[in-house]
Each structure stands twice: as C-alpha cells, then as structure tokens.
C-alpha cells in the first residue's frame, strides 16, 4: 500500500504517496517524472542512477524511497541555476566528457558530490570518486579532464 513520504527534491519540498518497495530511483523517475536520473543495471553496479542524498552521492536504485523521508535529494535536474549550468555540467559538455550521455547524470552527481566536500581534488581523488560509475563510451580520460577543469574553475 502506498504511504506518505516527505522529502525535498532539488530544493522543492514534496509530499507524495509511494509504494513501500519503491526505490528512490523509481520514485524519482516514475512518480516525480524526473527522468534525468538513469536506470542502467538497477543493482548498484553502474552508477547511472547516482543522486545526492543529503549531499552524499548514492546509487538511488539501492535506496528505498521511504528511507529518504525528510531528506534532501539533488538530481541532475537540480544543478543548474538561473545563471546557467553548474561548472561540472559545463565542463562535461565543453571537454567531451560525454558521448551517449547515459552515464553522464550519474558521473556528474559523483563529481559534484566530490567537489562539494573537496574543491581542490587531485587527479587521484577524482579517479577514486568516479570509480563506481561505468561509462562505456569515453574510456574515462575526458571525464577526468572535465572534472579537473571544473574543479579548477570552481576554485575561489
């Protein structure tokens, strides 16, 4: 039976009815129609579904929607501001950090999660932060370049 769930998604308070077995990923995609977050494996292996849960990157397919009660969720749709794209988004587009784009929302959320707690990461730290995100198109080189460039730009 569907149950009430209160949470904040992309800075917007939401109250919705969700089945108890729904994953956070299915809730975002099928109930809130936020389809920017992607479903690759649905088993925690690919990272395409990565979102920020209270600022920390999680694979949303492995998180029950109801465990995000009262939490703050940020998806790829919530990164851009009035001023434009988030620096990480900008850098992915500019440096060829994406091809098909299916892994991209997840990679971007992992990168944003990293930069939020460490805005001066080494290349090693960047590589580690995206170690759980699969990308079949790029071979990762340009992804790392993009994240390093974004960090550079975001640095005060």
């Amino acid at each position, binding site marked *: 039976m569907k149950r009430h769930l209160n949470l904040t998604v992309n800075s917007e308070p939401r109250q919705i009815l969700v*089945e108890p*077995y729904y994953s956070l990923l299915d809730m975002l*995609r099928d109930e809130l*129609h*936020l*389809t*920017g*977050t*992607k*479903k*690759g*494996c*649905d*088993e*925690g*292996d*690919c990272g*395409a579904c990565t979102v920020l849960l209270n600022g920390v990157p999680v694979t949303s397919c492995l998180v029950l929607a109801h465990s995000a009660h009262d939490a703050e969720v940020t*998806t*790829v*749709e919530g*990164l*851009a501001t009035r001023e434009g*794209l988030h620096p990480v*988004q*900008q850098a*992915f*587009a*500019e*440096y*060829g950090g*994406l*091809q*098909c*784009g*299916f*892994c*991209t*929302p997840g990679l*971007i959320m992992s990168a944003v999660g990293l930069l939020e707690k460490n805005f001066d990461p080494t290349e090693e730290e960047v*590589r*580690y932060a*995206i*170690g*759980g*995100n*699969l*990308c*079949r*198109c*790029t*071979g*990762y*080189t*340009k992804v*790392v370049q993009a994240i390093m460039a974004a960090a550079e730009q975001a640095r005060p």
Partner: protein
Amino acid sequence: MTTAFTTVGTPVARAEGPDKVSGQTLYTADVDLPGMLWGKVLRSPFPHARIVNIDVSRAQEAPGVRAALTGRDIPPALVGRLLRDCPVLARDRVRFVGEKVAAVAADNPEAAQEALLLIDVEYEELPAVFDASEAMQASAPSLHPDIESYVGLPQPPSPMNNVFAHNRWGKGEVEQGFRESDRVFEHTFSAQLMHQGYIEPHACVVRVDDSGRVEMWVNNKAPFNLRSQLSAVWDIPENRITLHPISIGGDFGGKGSFMDTPLCYYLAIHSGRPVKMVMDYLQELMAANPRHPADIALKTGVKNDGTLLAREASVVFNSGAYGAFKPRVYLGGADHLGGAYQVPHVSIDSYMVYTNNVPCGHMRAPAKPQVHFAVESHMDMIAAELGLDPYEFRLRNVIRQGDETPTGGSWEEVRAEETIRRAAQASGWGQPKDRPNAGRGMAISDQPPGAGQSEASVAIDAEGKVEIRMALWDTGTGAHTMLRQVVAEELTVPVDDVRFTVQNTDAVAFDSGSGGSRVTYTAGQTALGAARDLKAKLVQQAAGLYETEKEYVTLQGGTFVIEGTPAQTVPITEVTARVISEPGNAIIGEMTYSATNSPVTSYCTQVAEVEVDPETGQVRVEKIVTVHDVGAIINPMTHQGQIEGGVIQGMGYALMEELVAEEGRISNLTLGDYKIPTMPDIPKLETVLLEPSTGPAPFQSKGIGESSNVPVAGAIANAVYDAVGARVTSLPITPEKVLRAIRERESNKP
C-alpha cells in the same frame, strides 16, 4: 597544398551536450504516453526444449494485466535483420536459455512482473549442443531443420550440420605456397562471448492507433532497416510505421537489432494500449545479441628469412540459436584472416554455426577483434620460432602501396608501414624496460570507412540561421556536431548558426543509420551535398538580386562577393532577408546519396605495454600507444573520443570481459560479475595521428568509429608473452590462463 578551414578541424563541443548534462535528453525508457502499459517477457530456462503446453490464463486474470500472450496468439512469421529465422515468441520449441516464451502487458511494471510468475509452461527437454565444432558434426541435433524454408538466406546453406553460412575468400594456390615455404606453422585461437556493454538497456515503446498506424520509439540506430524488418513480420506496409527520433545510450553495434519491438506491437494490439518494454540488465546479459565467440585455426608458410608465402585460415563462429541478429548472415571481418600483410597464397573459410547459446549479433568492427587477436598473436609466435623481432617481422611483410590484399583486393594510399614505424618510435620499441616482468606487444589492423545511403536537406531562413534535417539518430558519437561543422564550412557560416534536427522515418525515404564507420563518409557527403545545393541556390538568388550572372558571385566568410567595378560584398543575411519574405520560410538544399566502397582504408597499429605479476598472473596494462592513418579530422575532440573509448573496450575484451556460459546458461548476469573497465583500470594512452592523407568523406576525412578497438587484444597478448614468456591463445587473458601458460613454459624448459 593545405586548405585553410575555419570550422573543420576545430574541437566544437557537441550541440546536444547541454541537454545531456542537465538530464533533459530523452531516451527510450523516458518516453511516457497516456494510458501506457509495461510489457514483460517470460524466458525459457532450458537451452533446448519442446514446449508441451503454456497456460497464461492465471496471468490474464491477475490484477492490472491487460494482455498475456504466447506464440499461439500471434501470427507465426519469423523475424530477422536479413535471415528471418527467429520467432517473435517461441511456439513449439525453445533453442536457448532466455528465449521468449510468453509476454504480458500490465498497468505497471510490478503487476507485469507478478503476472509472469502465474504463467505455467511445460517443457520437454531436448538434447542440446553448445560447442560450435560439435554442432557441425552429423551426430549433433539439427537446430533448424527447416532452414531451406527461411526467408533471407542469401546463399544455399552449407551441407554441414547447423552451418547456415560458409564463406570463402582467398587467392593464389595455398598448397603450392606451403610447398615453397621453408617452415609451416599452425596455431589455434579462441575468443569469448562478449556483451557490448552499453549502459542503456534495450527499450521500446509502441503505440497503435485505431486505424492501425504504428508509432514507435526505440533505441535502434538503423531505424529504416528496423521498419522494413517489422513491416515484413507484422505484414503491414512500411508507410504505416513511424519511428520517432530518440537518443541512444550507447550502441557499439548492439543496438541495430529488433530485440523486443516485434513483440511489443502484439502486446499493444492485444491490450489496445501503448506499451513500453525495457530490458533489465540481467536480460541484457542473458539474452540480447552479444559478440560472437570464435575458434580460429591458422596455418602459415614462411621462408627462412621471414617472408610470408601462404596462409590457410578457418574461423568458426558460434552464432547461437538464431542468425537473425546480424545484417548479413556472415561477419564481414572474417576476410581479414590474412592480416595487414602481403601474402601471395591465401585461403580463408568462415562458418556460421547454430548452437543452443544466446544468438549473437554485431559488435564494433564485427569479427575483426577476434580475427586480429588470432592473426597478430600468430605473427609473434612465428617470429619467436624464427628468432625475429616482431616489429622487423611485420615490417618485412606489411602490405605496401601497390600490393594486393590477402583477398585479392587493393587500396589506394596504403600507409600501414608508417603506422608500424610510428608505433615503434612512440613506444620506445627495442629499448630496455624500466622494470622486471614488463613487456611490449604490437598489433596492426585496418578499417575502411563504410558505405551506405542517406538523405539530407539543409535550410536557411531569413535571418541566415541554418538547419540540417536528417533521419540520423544520435548514438553518442557526436555525428550531429560533425555534420554541423561540415555544413558550416561549406556555407562559410559560424557553426553556432547551424543546428541539427533529427527527422522521423516518414520524412525521408531511407537512411542506413550509424555503423560500420560509415557516418562521416556517408552522412557527411550527404549533408555536404545538400549544403552545396543550398549554396548554389543562394548564389543564384544573389546574382538575381544584384543583376549579374552566378559565375560572378562567390561566397566567402559568410559574405557574397560580387565581381564588378567596384566589387560588392553582401552578407548572406541580406540576401536571405530580401529573398525570404514570409517568416518561417526558407531556402532549402537537398541531397540523396549512396556511397560507393571507399578506395582507401585506415590502418591502426598499437603497442601495449604491460606488467605481469608472475605470482598471480595478473596483467596490468601500463600504456597503450595507438597510431592511426587518418584523413582530415573534422572534430578532433569527438575523433579522439572514439579512439579512447574504442581502446578501452578493446582492453576489456583482452583482459576481463566474458559472458561465462555453462551448458548455455550464462552465470555472470550482473554488471558486478560481468566486469567492464572502470576508472582504476585505465592505462596511459598515447595517440599518434599520421599526417592527414586523403579520405572519401568530406574535406578528405575518414571514419574512426571502429578501428581503435580492433588491435588491442593482439597487442596485449603479445606484450604478456614479451613480459613473462607466457603465450595465451584464448581470450580473455585471465590471471588463471597466464599462470597456466607460465607453468607450461617452465615445464617445457630443458
């Protein structure tokens, strides 16, 4: 002469980038239609069985279920990309674990999934065959006894059991070649079952309206071909089917097949609702259309000085239960078993064999990664026997300008040797290694730009904004941006003023879609032709406006120069503003184009540098040098992106990726168990591009989609041998195999 380009040759960021990074791009699974149902399928647990009975009555009555179908509920037509041998739903017989036997459509995915549990199927198991060579024996069960009745078989099937295609290539007299040889070497190799590994699973959405018109959204990169396959199996005219453009989350050859689309239509018909089907990744790994496993035997005759004289080769592809998942019945790359060498006597046999495994399809450069792994390993094994350096041995035999290819063809501007030399240079070939158990290995292959057919229009509006319209889906390669650059260059306008609109399948007659390294060539020439047509029309208009002849008008830097005294310059926008009076109107150039086979190919030599742990057998790739014989490069960023992605896929193939099947049952059915390269696996990559030569694509460019993934496995295998003397002849090169090879080497020591 070097031509100065303005847009061509610059790393223009892809137009679809901003939408992709902000989650706005629509992929098939994101399509949501009013009243849409979710379709799910029940799959066979047996590799070969007779279906005695299927009962879907309990599923039909389950809550939320709107349709439940078996093979008996739909017409018996078979489907296929060329060879139509695959049932939409199995009727009497299943031939692989994962074959679809029943399907349901329900209000939501959970209801559909629950309903599958209520379907009762009674099977009677039949003897099965999994090994391709065994399947070829007369004693093996014959999996398609009715093959003669199938539509789409381009040649009579082989008399050999379960062989649905036997192809031969070659030249000269191979027996004579062996007689003239000083030494003859024979080796066998095998390559594994591999998944394309795109992160987006197969998906489709089908809507049928009351008049029977079909609309669909499907992550298929060759939508016109799909439409014709569906028209045949559904028995409705092609013009009743529309495929809408959609972004594709990775292809690598895997997204050219019909997959669930034929079935989704029947669920839509029977439920009276639009239906969405999305494969989960378990089904992807179990029952999509992976790369063919291959068993390859090579026999080569050489002179004592290392000159190749004869090559006899055979490859047996384990095609699985159906041949339906490939656009030809055989894999074209099999003809590369002579390698990139000058060999006077060649005989190549390729066999496509039915077995009770998952049916295989295309993956990036079909057959070539298998073939070149074998050929390049074999070359090094021969070099070792002859005491020659593998680099020198290749230089002695590599194909050169004017040489015939091993299959009797020829290429213009052959630059194979340069790629070998540059790869040796860049990798420090022959120099001492900086640590123990390190090795270098080399491999070479080639990939010509592919031919195809395409249609484009290029429109300019009153403000001078340009729109390219083509029915070419985005698979992620950056094709649309490359085409914008081609058109911008021709019209001498800024690339930002050129946008790309993807049309649906009603808009044009045909497009071959992406694949076969063809887009830069085929779609590129088409867009260029349409831009030229538009340019001619604009020049004509400008001449009319300024009362001169078109011969006196040229277009340069976005401006018409009109000869005369004095010469006048008129911006394009002035002409378009004056000529196009109605808002929304445009001047349109058009092109329909059918590419002929490219006269040039593109060689790629790679050197892998590895370190092998002799205790564990673990191979660590430190560096890969990849050297490409390129034409002009339209977009260096997306070009490099293809190279990098391809090399890493090749590395996954070489070292880690294998769908492990036992008796037809694949056991590693998650991306946690089926490992593809992740960030920590990535070696240093050095790309060397030769000076641009000529190419058949716009502005003397070539294709790049497939070449970099082909030589990797051979280069790594040879590097492992160089490092620790262990020769692994079967892919992937796992630590267990390396250890076994090290032990074998030690036990063979005198």
